[in-house]
């Protein structure tokens, strides 16, 4: 499948200087960029089901923002001498995208927000923040600033979702749980310490997870930070903490 943005996925040509960790960062950037592109596609699709023109415009603005993030990650790759591939049809990302598109087909605006803003963005905010602390130079700053921007997205959606929950908390919580089972199960598999279900179709070679420690990251901390962010976001929505912890503890490892 063709990348959404053609960035010439070949490895750097002979003679290009690569730091020892460039290929690890290449894979990390590839995951981040793919996630941003999926988000861009999701927001674009969301704009088509918004009844309110202002909300549709907001969604398109978000889509443009996510594309900007993807471009920023690509640029960081070039700075360290690698091209950053992307694959929105890689198996996990495809499943996440399909889950979102089912909500679009149902014209389920709230469901879309829950999937994108509560689930996918929790994953992005937490993992970018961790990467931002250890990535070298401008790449670290890029990860950190995109994490901060994504967090603003969450804030934007929270007001809408809190209002929705106030109408019928039980119905809202049941809906979140259904989406949790569908979406967070896939995210948990992506975040597992090892990819036991074969290649993720984003890493350029073998799985990057065992090498993360070489750039002061671990799959375990990315998973932990992401799930904590998710729990905190659900807390902010007002879902009972003991219930959401049970959900998270039941995710695959």
């Amino acid at each position: 499948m063709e990348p959404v943005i053609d960035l010439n996925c070949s490895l750097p040509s002979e003679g290009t200087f690569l730091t020892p960790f460039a290929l690890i960062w290449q894979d990390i950037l590839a995951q981040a960029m793919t996630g941003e592109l999926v988000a861009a596609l999701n927001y674009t699709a969301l704009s088509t089901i918004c009844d309110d023109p202002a909300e549709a415009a907001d969604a398109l603005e978000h889509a443009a923002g996510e594309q900007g993030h993807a471009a920023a990650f690509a640029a960081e790759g070039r700075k360290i001498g690698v091209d950053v591939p992307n694959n929105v049809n890689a198996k996990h990302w495809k499943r996440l995208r399909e889950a979102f598109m089912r909500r679009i087909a149902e014209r389920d605006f709230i469901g879309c927000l829950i999937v994108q803003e509560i689930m996918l963005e929790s994953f992005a905010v937490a993992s970018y923040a961790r990467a931002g602390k250890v990535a070298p130079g401008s790449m670290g700053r890029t990860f950190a600033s995109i994490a901060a921007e994504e967090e603003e997205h969450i804030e934007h959606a929270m007001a809408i979702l809190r209002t929705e929950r106030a109408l019928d908390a039980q119905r809202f919580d049941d809906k979140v749980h259904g989406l949790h089972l569908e979406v967070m199960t896939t995210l948990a598999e992506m975040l597992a310490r090892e990819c036991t279900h074969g290649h993720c179709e984003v890493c350029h070679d073998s799985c990057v997870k065992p090498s993360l420690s070489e750039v002061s990251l671990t799959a375990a901390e990315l998973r932990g930070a992401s799930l904590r962010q998710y729990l905190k976001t659900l807390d902010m929505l007002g879902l009972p903490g003991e219930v959401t912890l049970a959900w998270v503890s039941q995710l695959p490892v």
Partner: protein
Amino acid sequence: MGESVAGVAANVAQQAPAIDVDFALIGHQECWRAAADVLAVLRGPEHPPLPDDEIRDIFPWIPPRAICHVEAGSIAGGKARGVYIDSFIPPDRLDANYMRDNLARVRGAAAYAIKAGAKIVSLGGFSSILIEGNLDQLPERHGTVFTTGNTLTVGFIVQGIKKMCALEGRNLRRSTLLIVGATGDVGSGCARCLAPVVKRVLLNARNMERLRTLAAELEADGVQVEIATGLQQFSAEADVAICAASLASPSLLLGRIAPGAIVCDAGYPKNLSPSGQMAGAKIFFGGLGQITGGLRFKPDFQGILNRHPFPDVVHGCLLEGMALALERRFEPFSQGRGFITPERVEEIETIAARHGIFLAPLYNADGPVEDGVECLAGWSAG
């Protein structure tokens, strides 16, 4: 990690679910096996238990939160409802190196209790540090009060010592009492309660200045006191010992104690090292009470949050909050800083007894120490 956990308090204070509760119990797990059991209950029987390495990966990232509802019954007829809030301090991070992070977790748990509307909050184990000068950093409390629960813990330790002496046919008045962790809230409370009824008191703690202050207080009442920062420095062997030190793990080696000494391990986590050689010592776990009016957890954490061989047994510090809630006395009964007196101990014991909260049957790692007392089915020694 530290700064992220610190943020939990503010977030939770804004948005935690509103649960109608009389009391909240804040606790943490003292070993990885207990942590694994908590996660196993949360996962439910249809999911296989997590591997140990996964548990160690996941546990430190869990923000403080309620994990179950608790209902305590009184023999006088009333009921009190509450929540158990776990601060999710990893059991191997209870030492001083993680103080800042742990304090942030306890604050997060306390904020959760406030938001839940708890009228009284008992601070179990390490959590009692919150009350030692850290309460002012909490969100607005809206009438929620905090108690360390240590007064009732002291009461049950003292009752346990007296009961064990009676079981063993010892005369407490002829005994030399050693208290490890003597200057702490629990240790000093035990000293004040027991010093008048023993022959001599040996006080051990890390801070010599505090030891001198406590010794002077006891000596003013005519008690024979010896103090030392090292356990080998005392001139006499103890035949009764209370271990009430704040230790990150069971690592205490008592060394010189009389053969057949009565030893109360009142620590959480336990103080005594399993490898400690104490010939013929009569060891029991102290500070535990039993709520005879009934205790229910939802979901069912019975035997997980209270890992004892008898039903409805709980640490005194948590029972104090339940007793006060059953009494509808929502006040900060135990305020830490070493102010526990025999009069206050008697007062809380009376309140507890009125609601059917009594000293639990005595036991140690091998099981019950009293004849004719049966363990719960499924309880394993060790």
